[in-house]
């Protein structure tokens, strides 16, 4: 009986511990929730707003630091930042939180998905708050801020694809270290940079993850677009849509381009790794990678516009800040003040220098501080200059699914399982259904 009693006591103890532990944390957050309810009624209490962000590592730390600075300088608003995983995890979380009614007031939404969120009526129309002051942002970054002519988002951590070159290798091969300017030059450079030892390729001239981002870029460069103007039709069943696949497959076949293995972002990591190791001389990757590549490379890293087809062209990426439609009016007002401060010139310069993302306002780019930095690090400026040729990514709700289809077919073509014509035809067949939704 004694042992039985001791087991019972143990059980009791563990249950009471459980209750104590949980109620402790519950009371903490419960208190916060009560504070929220009474906030913003003009009774002198600061308005509390929740901000969910989706960047980890050094950039996440920087965001927390900026929020702290905002809270110190704005006594009437308290922003509570919370990390919510990567973009996609954050999106899923925000959508479920909206269903449950405990959504944040401000969050980060990946540029291409702003349309989906706006279409679902999750976002607040920012037009009445902005009153035209959104013109301060760089126009090339605003492509993914509007949905059906209404302003729903402001640019925050924005990137664009660039061509990165190993300047040492280019010089060694007697090429212009500024990099190839056109598709033809890209082929010519890659041929000269590829080094073979017997059957084994020691260095490939060029490599790029077969990602929708770069495909979009190459389609834009040929004067094409992925979807029709109204977003209801696929627009790549033509020369502009097929040329990128032909370019890549022919370069792979010739042995002067490496198709980096790996699913999604793994392929990006492989391309960057190969570039750093000197196994590949030129790659496409994001502006966001500049800092990391420069500091880890043992050679001179150069950046350039993506080589031009008929013209230069590039999509933009990264995330925008949005305000959620379900928040109270007082919170929305505070939220607007917050996102506007986060993206204003002094902050966006600070953010750009710390993270490597592009500054959001024209004023920031023209500021003496940035100009001095650009003089010292011309690689940083290339991205901003390329914005002149930037186009918005398609924003229709079905595109998230469609881009997976396109990437799967691109990969099939790359592996020789389909001709460019077959790949595009396969995309078209599936696109009809997806875009009708």
């Amino acid at each position, binding site marked *: 009986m004694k042992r039985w009693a001791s087991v019972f006591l143990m059980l009791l103890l563990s249950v009471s511990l459980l209750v104590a*532990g949980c109620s402790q944390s*519950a009371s903490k*957050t419960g208190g916060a929730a009560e504070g929220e309810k009474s906030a913003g009624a003009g009774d002198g209490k600061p308005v509390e707003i929740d901000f*969910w962000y989706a960047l*980890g590592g050094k*950039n996440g730390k920087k965001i927390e630091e900026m929020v702290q600075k905002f809270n110190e300088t704005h006594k009437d608003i308290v922003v509570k930042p*919370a990390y919510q995983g990567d973009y996609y995890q954050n999106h899923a979380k925000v959508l479920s939180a909206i269903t449950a009614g405990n959504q944040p007031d401000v969050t980060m939404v990946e540029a291409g998905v702003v349309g989906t969120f706006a279409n679902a009526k999750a976002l607040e129309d920012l037009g009445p708050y902005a009153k035209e002051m959104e013109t301060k942002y760089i126009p090339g970054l605003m492509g993914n801020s509007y949905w059906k002519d209404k302003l729903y988002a402001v640019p925050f951590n924005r990137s664009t694809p660039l061509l990165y070159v190993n300047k040492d290798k280019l010089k060694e091969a007697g090429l212009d270290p500024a990099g190839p300017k056109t598709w033809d030059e890209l082929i010519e450079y890659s041929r000269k940079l590829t080094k073979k030892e017997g059957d084994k390729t020691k260095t490939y001239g060029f490599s790029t993850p077969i990602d929708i981002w770069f495909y979009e870029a190459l389609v834009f460069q040929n004067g094409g677009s992925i979807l029709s103007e109204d977003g209801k039709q696929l627009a790549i069943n033509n020369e502009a849509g097929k040329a990128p696949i032909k370019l890549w497959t022919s370069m792979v076949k010739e042995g002067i381009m490496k198709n980096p293995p790996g699913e999604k972002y793994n392929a990006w990591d492989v391309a960057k790794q190969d570039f750093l190791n000197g196994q590949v001389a030129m790659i496409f990757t994001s502006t966001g990678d500049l800092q990391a590549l420069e500091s*880890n490379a043992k050679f001179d890293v150069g950046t350039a516009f993506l080589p031009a087809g008929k013209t230069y062209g590039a999509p933009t990426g990264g995330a925008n800040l949005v305000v959620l439609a379900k928040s109270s009016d007082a919170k929305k007002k505070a939220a607007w003040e917050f996102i506007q401060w986060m993206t204003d010139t002094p902050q966006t310069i600070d953010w750009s220098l710390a993270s490597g993302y592009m500054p959001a306002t024209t004023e920031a780019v023209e500021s003496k501080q940035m100009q001095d930095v650009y003089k010292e690090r011309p690689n940083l400026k290339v991205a901003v200059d390329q914005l002149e040729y930037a186009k918005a990514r398609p924003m229709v709700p079905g595109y998230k699914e469609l881009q997976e289809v396109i990437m799967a077919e691109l990969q099939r073509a790359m592996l020789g399982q389909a001709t460019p014509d077959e790949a595009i035809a396969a995309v078209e067949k599936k696109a009809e259904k997806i875009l009708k939704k």
Partner: protein
Amino acid sequence: MYPLRLYVFKTIEWLLLLAVALLFVFPFLWMALTAFKTLPEVFRFPPTFLPESWQIQNFAVAWKSGPFLTYLVNSLFVALSILVLQLFTAVPAAYAFARYKFKGRNVLFGLTLIALMIPPQVIFLPIYVFMSEWNLVNTLWSLILPYGASAFGIFLLRQAFMQVPDEVIEAARLDNASEWKIMWKVMVPMAKPVLVTFGLFSFIYHWNDYFWPLIMTNNEQVRTLPIGVAMMKSSEGDTLWHVIMAGNMILVVPILIIFFFAQRHIINAFVYQSK
């Protein structure tokens, strides 16, 4: 003396086992070694196997990148609470399924098995809404309560209980033992290897779980170790692989220690099951 042929077979068997073991161990070993390197060394090609100099401070950097003590306490608390709850729901349920004949037993057991096959990603939204209505989102409750009963545990224990000979139970009943007592004093000790195995599975699953805590919590006070480790990774740019691997080591080592002590029981469980 064994015949020579047996030695040859044994050697081949051992070599094969060793090769398979190496296949499984290598990623862990690589993680452990990377945790001690510098970042430039991580990126070097051809890669080095052993670190040139052992960078023990990587662990300190990882530990200080967030409130890791809080994460650790939360992880332990959540995983252990779930385990306790699951055992106290699974044992009676399994006993009933294994030893009683009642109307609808097979239907109920079928339902339990169906629950086994539904991944958390499918049902997180309704549970999230539930938790939100009860004001439990962003508390440790929301990490523990949804996992209070385990279909897997019920299934595993039922199989074990079914293997206990009827004579044993009848003997206990003759001695006037209550059903409650038979369950805990006769059945549970006889199913010990299975209990340990299930305990390990449950603990490891919830210790490693990333998705559920990420969805249910919003701030550091109620978050767990896997989120702390994931937060070290940037989506773009500078990823400090050596520090992340050090963080992963902090995450994995407790499990390795527990596993080390419990592995004898696990082997027993499988031998027992297949008898």
